[in-house]
């Protein structure tokens, strides 16, 4: 077993464990913190896959911005737990479906990709953010700009939605 493989398994166990933790934790704050750990471990996977720019984006956007936003909302609402959430009788179908989905996914990977496809060695070029930027700003320029508009719209939408309307308050 190579070092890389060991690292992979360790990280994989952390990722799955934190995902389960998020899933099962009664407190929304704990769920959010588990998810942060999960995101960080996924970011390390990105580094292993020669995608440093994506990895740093993952840390900054997900683990940073998004999760802070979550925690902020949780604090704002102030309601952390809901009683009697995990009723086992209700869980039969979702559990069955989740397991089915997992089995199908694994089989699909084996069927379509194969067990023995290894990641190539020439990943050095992929890890260069300036090359990626060149592609992003030439071939994908239009989607990039549309994304900017999308973010603007989302920002306005968030403001409009969270604004307290005077008339509503008076009523």
């Amino acid at each position, binding site marked *: 077993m190579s070092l890389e493989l060991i690292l992979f398994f360790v990280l994989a166990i952390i990722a799955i464990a934190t995902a389960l933790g998020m899933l099962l934790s009664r407190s929304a704050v704990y769920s959010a913190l588990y998810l942060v750990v999960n995101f960080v471990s996924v970011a390390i996977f990105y580094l292993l896959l020669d995608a440093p720019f994506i990895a740093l984006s993952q840390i900054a956007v997900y683990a940073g911005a998004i999760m802070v936003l979550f925690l902020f909302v949780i604090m704002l609402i102030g309601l952390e737990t809901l009683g009697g959430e995990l009723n086992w009788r209700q869980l039969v*179908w*979702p559990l069955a*479906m*989740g397991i*089915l*989905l997992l089995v*199908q*996914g694994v*089989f*699909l990977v084996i*069927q379509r990709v194969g067990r023995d496809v290894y990641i190539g060695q020439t990943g050095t070029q992929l890890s260069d953010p300036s090359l990626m930027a060149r592609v992003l700003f030439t071939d994908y320029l239009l989607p990039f700009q549309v994304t900017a508009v999308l973010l603007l719209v989302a920002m306005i939408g968030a403001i409009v939605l969270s604004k307290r309307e005077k008339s509503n308050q008076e009523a």
Partner: protein
Amino acid sequence: MLLSEANPAAGLFVLVPWIVFAPVIGLLINAFAGKRLGERGVGWVASLASGAAFLVSALQFYALTLHPEGAQVKIAEWIRIGQLSLDWTFRVDSLSVTMMLVVSGVGTLIHIYAIGYMHEDVRFKHDPARFPRFFVFLNLFIAAMMILVSADNYLMLFVGWEGVGLCSFLLIGFWYDLDTLGRSSWANSNAAKKAFITNRVGDFGFLIAGFLIFWYMGSFAFSEVFAAAPEVAKTHPWVITAITVFMLVGVAGKSAQIPLYVWLPDAMAGPTPVSALIHAATMVTAGVYLVTRSFPLFGLTHDGQYIVATVGAVTALFAATIAVGQYDIKKVLAYSTISQLGFMVAAVGMGAYVAGMFHLVTHAFFKALLFLSAGSVILGLERGHHHGHHAPSSPVLPPQGAGNSLSHGEIDRVKEEVFDPGDIRNMGGLRARMPVTFWVYLIGALALAGIFPLAGFWSKDEILLDAFLHYPHVYWLLTLAAFLTAFYMGRQVWMVFFGKARHEAAEHAQESPSVITIPLIILAALSAFGGFINLPFKGFHQFGYWLEHTLGAIEFPPFNFMVAGVSTVLALGAIALSWFLYQRKPLEHGQTDPLAKPLGLVFVGMEQKWFIDEAYQFLFVQPYRALASWLAQKVDWDFWHEWFHDSVLVKGFVTLARLLADPVDLGFIDRVSYWLSDAIRASAETLRKLQNGFVRSYALSVVLGVAAILGYLLLK
């Protein structure tokens, strides 16, 4: 167009559409602004419109003297259907320009006359608001007549033909709710309907002729039809004869020939200018024009010519006999018109187109003159009657008992019932009181009688000469008719203008104003000298040479002193005879006609128009009415309403509806639809449980779908 660039006069041909546009503009102005223009304005607009048409016609005449070959002026495409291709084209040649000049010239004079006449007529009938309408109709008539005479194909001619028929109908029925004496009556509208329906019979013949022409010649355009005619005459000789005979039916309707003449005497119900313009001078000559225009067709069929000539001659004599027995001044002239139209039709039937057209022109002058003078006489009598009514010594007073309860206007009307201003038995001795009218009437009467050297002498003599040379039986009929013509005109003149007044209205008759007499004087001059356009001597056939450009080479028979002498002697003899009967011992009031005793039953026949109207009533109108009422009662009411509608349709429908309602509608359609709706409702009840509002159960179904798709991909 056959215009040459070299001569500027040829450019005048393009003005020809204005003979139609000018009267149309006039009628539009009067139709929309007539109320505001006032009587004087309306009259002037209409007269100027007609005068403009005359001016354009005169310019065409001038252009034609320089370019005798004429022109076809196309202003629009008209019909394009398959192989049929017709244009709205004005034909300018010597024949059409002759008609244009007559129509617009006489028409303009009559327009001016009508200003004066209608001014009094609308007051006599107590409805001055109708004044503009009269001139609208009159201008419309001029426009339609111009289309008729300037047409370049039979269909366009037919448009004009129907247009003048419509105007005739409108103008005969101008006082549709009053009779000639201003009383409430439907007599005039009946006369209008009679004219229109009789003309329909004739138009039917014309249409058949048109269909035959198109079927065998393949065109409506004159030039193409005439070019194709000789070929058709060789292969199907009967076709040409049939065309001419059917055309004769149309001519008999429009130009009042036997057997369709009956509408023309009744048409005198229209105002006198209408009688003069439409029913004497212009419209009724359309048939003569049609035959002349179609001369290449008539030239190919001897049978057709023979029939046309005979019908014309018989009509001439027949109508003349009736004219002898009439008392109404306009009725006499009406039958005289029929008789003279018979002369023209006989002439063109014999192939003597120049003589026919010549008589058409002169007749337009003197018959318009006679009608207008008669109108002047009638107005004079009405004035005299009005004067007498207010005189203290008036012997004719309204009945005392009735007078108390009647308004003034009604008193007038009650009184009119006893006095007919058109009855020559009420006249007499008008020579002194209406001198201008007397002199012009005398000129017209002598011209009609055919006295040398007035217009009628030359034109009638030319017809008689042609008949004498080619159709002896026509000659005899026409000579006899000419004798009667002179006789009844003499009778009329003696009874109207000489002797003593037989009615106090005639005693107080007054001369008409100058707006009426000036057109009369102009027409009198034309009647007197109009004959000189075509003297029957070598080198003097100006009118004949003129028409030769259109009709081709014409043979001019030398002047025959025998024919002319016989007709002159007969005319003078007839006048002498009428003097002997009517003037030697002038008629007294209430006395019967001196002819009644010697002629006996014959005179009764003349007086009663040979009972033709009664015969038509018996033969056509009553059977038609009987058939109509039988159809209305039996076929329409009993069969269609009672039986077919009520029994068959209604009952059948009810039965069918009942049949459909119970087994089909309730039993099948309703059951199926109820089952469908129940099934849908039940399934909806089941399915609505799925929509429970819980997001997570929706998400579960999404996952279920994903799992299904993945399963499919796995197993594929």
